[in-house]
């Protein structure tokens, strides 16, 4: 708790200041592909998925959360805490549904996402080392986190890849202008 508060205070200041100074002339994008595996199980529900970035000393930022946002009385929010690492890092501080962050759960397959620096949930990025997290938690199923470390600004043509083993498949991060 204490640590988190400290991070929150210094984080906002640091990210804000550095972000404005180092804003690139042209918009840069993070292009992410996330594979949700097709599972052969008796009872299948699409996983809740959270995608967020962390940087040491900065407040984590949620980029996307896929959950049952349209159930009556907001019942789908009850299980958000099961995406537990995200919930602790960022989710519990968010007001949901959040514009540009909340999304519907996705079927098995490859999903492409794009985030633009300086806009929407990604916001301005100061130079430094970041980690993009993808966490999936499935009702009556398991949970998995996959991490994609990256440096900002990215080197031209940089690609970061990782492979989930149970609840997530291949994930890849590329950068574009």
């Amino acid at each position, binding site marked *: *708790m204490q640590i*988190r508060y400290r991070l929150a205070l210094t984080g906002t200041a640091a990210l804000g200041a550095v972000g404005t100074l180092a804003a690139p002339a042209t918009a840069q994008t993070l292009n992410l592909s996330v594979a949700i595996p097709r599972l052969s199980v008796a009872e299948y529900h699409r996983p809740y998925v959270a995608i967020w970035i962390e940087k040491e000393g900065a407040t984590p930022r949620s980029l996307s959360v896929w959950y049952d946002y349209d159930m009556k009385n907001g019942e789908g*929010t*009850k299980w*958000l*805490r099961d995406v*537990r690492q995200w*919930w*602790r890092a960022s989710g*519990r501080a968010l007001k949901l549904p959040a514009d540009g962050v909340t999304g519907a759960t996705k079927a098995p397959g490859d999903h492409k996402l794009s985030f633009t620096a300086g806009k929407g949930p990604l916001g301005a990025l100061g130079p430094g080392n970041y980690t993009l997290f993808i966490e999936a938690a499935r009702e009556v199923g398991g949970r998995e986190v996959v991490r994609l470390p990256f440096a900002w600004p990215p080197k031209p043509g940089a690609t970061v890849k990782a492979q989930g083993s149970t609840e997530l498949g291949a994930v890849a991060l590329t950068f574009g202008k």
Partner: protein
Amino acid sequence: MKATYLIAGALAALMLPATAQAHRQWMLPSSTTLSGDDSWVTVDAAISNDVFYFEHFPMATDGIAVTEPDGSTGTIENAAKGRYRSTFDVHLTKPGTYRIANVSTGVMGSYMLNGKQERLPRGTTKDKLASVIPAGATDVQTAEMSNRNEIFVTLGAPTTTIFKPTGTGIEMVPVTHPNDLVSGEAATFQFLLDGKPAADLKVTVIPGGIRYRDALGQMDLTADKDGKVVVTWPEPGMYWVNASIGGGREGGPGGPGGMGGPGAGALGAAPTPPARPAGPPQRRAAYVSTLEVLAP
């Protein structure tokens, strides 16, 4: 951690007779970390030997109070008492951290009347003390008791409004929030006795699930001069936390792990039975909580 386990295991064997009579009181919430705008927790409350198995006696629910994140008083719902455990629900409708607590205070003691020693009736409170001691009583000796059994649950982000100490009995003031605990991380809690740092307080932490392992896995901690203890959680799960003074109970003087108890002696030394209290009754205070530790 390994070393602690070995020692804890050896001690557990020595302490069996003592712990068999410990009758630990506990409340076990269905969740401590909740999301959404509206949620429920259901709580089991019992008195038993092994945590967290209902096997002995239900805990009374009449004295259980709910403090909502903004400090206002909440209610328990659907309270029921079974043979071995009580159960009740708490409806969470406000974001933040709730306290669910059973807090009691009382006075025990004795007096001499017509050459005979008489005890104060059970349930005597400080304000009724004058009315229970008859005229002509001499050698009046009293001591206060304060018991606190509390758990915390959080809807959304943890908050700290409810942690303002009352100044009575043993209280826990979080440095690390009790609903922000993760295995492998260290958590710090400050204990107060009657509002002041409880220096040297013995605090016992036992992981739940005792039935399915041989070693108790008990962690015996001693508060520093500021009343602070640091716990590094070896694994995720529910943990029973206990501290007491003056009653010969677990964690307190005379109890296992307390001064004069088996845990205090050199490893391998035969445990000395605690001496019967002599002289005036001692101030007694006890603290119990159940903390949930999540996986990273």
